[in-house]
């Protein structure tokens, strides 16, 4: 950019808009005051309060259990689905079904699953959230793996078959390794979406085991306390590290 462009104004506004709330959130988490509205000096007491909070700790564990299970399941289902859609069918309908969970508003999927679980008298708990998160997880993994499939060369697989490998051997030894970056990216996406997901978890959770977003929701609804700021700051730190690591990782795999 050699000279000033009017584009800097709205673009600057965008970044200010995106980061002002985050900065305020983080600064206020180190506040000694009882409310996040007034600055009473630097203090890390809210972090101590947060670590003693059992609801938060249990919510975090529940969230990780759900996300790990849903990610494992969606990675397997989504990868197979992507290969099947790319290699074995040209059906537009099947394509549409596979992307539907990613396009559908979350509340529609949430009420649908609640209705379904109730109709088949399925007990609600962590497992019902896990199965629900697998629905959109599968769709996202399939979408990411499909873009990777479009870029890989099919001749390696043909060569493997011609040299006498069975279809299963070819899939395990050739197709899966060449899809690996896509599968990892898809799994990371499914994992982070599950960790953050609130609406579907809110509808399909049992009364006993809330996930962290559900705990946060009840904290926010109950009132504004700097403890939420401390939690927010920690979560921000984790997801920022995560995103930057993923970025580095994708640059690494691209250069390979």
């Amino acid at each position: 950019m050699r000279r000033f462009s009017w584009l800097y104004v709205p673009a600057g506004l965008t970044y200010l808009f995106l980061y002002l709330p985050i900065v305020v959130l983080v600064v206020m988490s180190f506040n000694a005051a009882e409310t996040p509205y007034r600055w009473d000096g630097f203090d890390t007491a809210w972090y101590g309060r947060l670590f003693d909070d059992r609801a938060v700790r249990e919510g975090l564990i529940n969230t990780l259990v759900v996300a790990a299970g849903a990610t494992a399941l969606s990675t397997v289902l989504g990868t197979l689905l992507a290969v099947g859609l790319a290699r074995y069918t040209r059906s537009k309908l099947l394509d549409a079904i596979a992307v539907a969970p990613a396009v559908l508003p979350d509340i529609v999927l949430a009420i649908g699953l609640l209705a379904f679980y109730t109709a088949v008298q399925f007990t609600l708990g962590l497992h019902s959230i896990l199965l629900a998160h697998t629905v959109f997880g599968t769709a996202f993994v399939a979408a990411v793996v499909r873009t990777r499939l479009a870029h890989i060369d099919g001749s390696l697989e043909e060569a493997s078959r011609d040299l006498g490998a069975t279809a299963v051997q070819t899939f395990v030894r050739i197709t899966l390794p060449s899809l690996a970056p896509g599968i990892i990216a898809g799994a990371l996406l499914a994992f982070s979406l599950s960790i953050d997901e609130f609406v579907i978890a809110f509808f399909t959770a049992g009364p006993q085991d809330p996930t962290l977003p559900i705990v946060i929701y009840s904290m926010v609804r109950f009132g504004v306390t700097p403890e939420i700021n401390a939690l927010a700051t920690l979560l921000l730190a984790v997801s920022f590290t995560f995103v930057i690591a993923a970025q580095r990782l994708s640059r690494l795999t691209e250069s390979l």
Partner: protein
Amino acid sequence: MSSTLTPQRAARTDVGPRGRRAARRERLAGRLATLGPGLGYLVVFLLVPLALVLSYTLFHRGRFGGIVYEASTDNFTRVADGLYLGVIWTSVKLAGLTTLLALLLGYPTAYLIARLPRRWRTVALVLVVLPFWTNFLIRTYAWIILLNSEGVINRTLTGIGAIDRPLELLYTPGAVVGGLLYAYLPLMVLPLYSAIERLDPQLREASANLGARPARTFWSVTLPLTLPGVLTGCVFVFVPSLGNFVVPELLGGGRTVMVGNLIRDQFLKARDWPFGSTLALVVIALLVLLLMAQAWATRRLAGGNRA
């Protein structure tokens, strides 16, 4: 791959009917093994639940909750009631306003990012996406802190003497639009960026060389060619905004009710699932119309560019 002597071709020529049958059987097995599990899962956990919601629209709530399986169109006449139509209209307006603002902020941002040197481009993009990867509820909570009558914005404004009484910012429709915009702005910037980045810079140069001023070039070259990206971004922002119930609840304080709040209340409070399902069907119908309009417009644009 283009060589005529690939082993694949050679192998294909010597298969007899038995080989062909085996190949067909193998293809079927492959199809079942790859598509079977995923599609089976989506049928049970997506299509059956959606069919269930769809069927509920015809029934009604029993006296003590539950569902009475007597078909009628009562739910639809009830949706047509002024109160509910008003809420749906409010939702469409707020989601539409959010989309418009996202476009006004997002387009110049994406345009600027696409013109940055390559190494800065990635940094600028990651910075746009980063807030999106933080918890949605916490992002909404941040706005409560900012907008509250004792919040940062009001304190700053009274501090510098711009106002003497705190402005009422929280629990307004404006706060709801702000919260939705904050939640979904990255979803506008990303498709816009990829559309603008793909644009051939020579087209802009050609336009300039032919004497068009920058504004003219923008309106008759850049914008039309990036319209598919604009449409995608608008859908990405409008769809989640329309069904959102968390932002209107936390930032609208229950004073701004959107259709998502109605659906949530019908399912979890009033326990009138048939009516909640009917409202959800209205949302789905609106979105299907929107997606059809988008597909139609994108096709027309693609056709226009080729001509």
